[in-house]
């Protein structure tokens, strides 16, 4: 009984898991191990407010520094777990020391996909944004007038484009797919953001294949596209998605499929090991699913914590997500996977609009642009297992509240 519960990965999910274990009354020894310098912090501002210098590090922290001691959580920073030994209930730290655990949680997050070194991905000046260290290295390089190329028109890439354009940089976003946000949103939402960026002077090139980045004197100087276009670049920010940190689990022989496979309560294929957050995939609506969001990190971690204490309950989320670009707040409720119908609802304010996704007539997601009411009622409908019919959603005069009954 005296061996501790150990959590590997001190991020959004790790801290939520620790907090939930304590809230559920677990009084035993609890160790939270992370390889970064700073106590767990929020990542979303790293591509938003933090870049414009509106927040200092203390305000990014998920919990204040003294919280860990108060809650009797042994926070070990700048330590890396390098191997797991499920049969022995042990793990190995980077200094070679071994640590025994009674139960283990893996909340190791994800790492950015990078451009291959063969096409210039390793050149200085070609960067990704995942952690505070990345942001702190990039921010001093941002200067008005500088030419920035963002590779990848997903949410993080577009946010990076927005904050840097607002700082006076000349920004070009290149997207390999037919349209920005193709993987995550309908054409209507893509069109909204394409226009928004255009209005702010950002050039968006869609269906633009990247050939390579090229350096001069050991630093990136340009981006060459497949069609032969050369884009001069003082800095290249790569935002082409993330890969789950599932290597520890894989090496230890745990089931891995698009991340560490867990059951609906958060348990891996080893009964004493759990996982949650960006690193974990779980069965949801009949499909193995991995979500990359704060909502998922927190709620899945809380389910895993309950399961670790013997109170397993199925995790059946209504996912939500947000993105800030310029003065537009995008809020997303649900997951639009497999949608077959989309309707657009104009909002009550200029520039506000929502996009409603249906699968076989059933509401599955809403993207709301500066339209919190649409988000709120869309989310409420999804939480209650209700549908707001497409004809009602599309009619700006229809009362959503009444439609929910």
């Amino acid at each position, binding site marked *: 009984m005296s061996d501790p519960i150990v959590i590997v990965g001190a991020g959004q999910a790790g801290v939520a898991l620790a907090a939930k274990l304590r809230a559920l009354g677990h009084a035993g020894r609890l160790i939270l191990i992370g390889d970064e310098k700073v106590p767990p912090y*929020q990542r*979303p*501002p790293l591509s938003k407010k933090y870049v414009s210098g509106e927040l200092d590090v203390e*305000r990014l922290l998920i*919990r*204040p520094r003294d*919280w860990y001691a*108060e809650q009797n959580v042994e926070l070990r920073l700048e330590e890396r777990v390098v191997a797991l030994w499920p049969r022995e209930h042990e793990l190995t730290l980077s200094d070679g020391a071994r640590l025994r655990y009674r139960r283990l949680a893996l909340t190791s997050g994800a790492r950015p996909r990078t451009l291959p070194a063969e096409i210039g991905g390793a050149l200085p000046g070609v960067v990704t944004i995942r952690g505070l260290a990345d942001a702190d290295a990039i921010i001093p390089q941002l200067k008005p007038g500088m030419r920035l190329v963002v590779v990848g028109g997903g949410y993080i890439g577009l946010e990076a484009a927005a904050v840097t354009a607002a700082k006076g940089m000349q920004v070009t976003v290149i997207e390999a797919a037919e349209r920005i946000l193709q993987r995550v949103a309908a054409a209507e939402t893509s069109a909204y953001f394409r226009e928004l960026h255009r209005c702010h002077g950002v050039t968006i090139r869609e269906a633009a294949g990247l050939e390579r980045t090229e350096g001069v004197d050991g630093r990136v100087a340009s981006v060459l596209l497949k069609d032969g276009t050369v884009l001069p670049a003082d800095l290249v920010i790569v935002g082409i998605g993330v890969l789950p940190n599932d290597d520890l689990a894989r090496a230890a022989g745990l089931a891995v499929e698009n991340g560490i496979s867990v059951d609906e309560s958060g348990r891996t294929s080893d009964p004493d090991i759990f996982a949650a957050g960006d690193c974990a995939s779980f069965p949801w609506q009949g499909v193995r699913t991995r979500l990359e969001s*704060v*909502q998922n990190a*927190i709620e899945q971690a809380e389910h895993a914590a309950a399961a670790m204490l013997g109170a397993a309950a199925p995790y059946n989320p209504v996912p*939500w997500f*947000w993105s*800030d670009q310029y003065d537009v*707040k995008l*809020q997303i409720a649900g997951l639009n996977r497999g949608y077959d119908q989309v309707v657009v609802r104009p909002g009550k*304010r200029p520039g506000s609009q929502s996009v409603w996704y249906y699968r076989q007539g059933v509401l599955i997601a809403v993207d709301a642009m*500066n*339209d*919190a*009411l649409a*988000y*709120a*009622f869309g*989310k*409420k409908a999804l939480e209650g297992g209700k549908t707001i019919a497409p004809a009602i959603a599309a009619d700006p005069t229809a009362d959503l*509240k009444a439609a929910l009954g």
Partner: protein
Amino acid sequence: MPKVTWILKDGKEITADVPVGHNLMEAAVAKNVPNVIGECGGCLSCATCHVYVDPAWYAKTGAPDDMESDMLEITVAERKPTSRLSCQIKAVPELDGLILRVPYI
């Protein structure tokens, strides 16, 4: 620094000196005020920072703007006339002594 007090359902009070410019969700989280969660980090997307402003103070905090008012539609606890999302209230000197009631979830 303005002093802010959160009153919990059971009458327990938690008081903090909040740096000017910080929002009252982050101040509550820093003080471990139960039921003020702040999942979205203050970006008006979760409504988990819902509080009831003491009616005597409501004129000073002001009413929610449009977006916030819309988000108040999905609070877990009932919306009341002085409901606010505390991430949208910034600590300013005029709010010294402010009293907020934390909804019971």
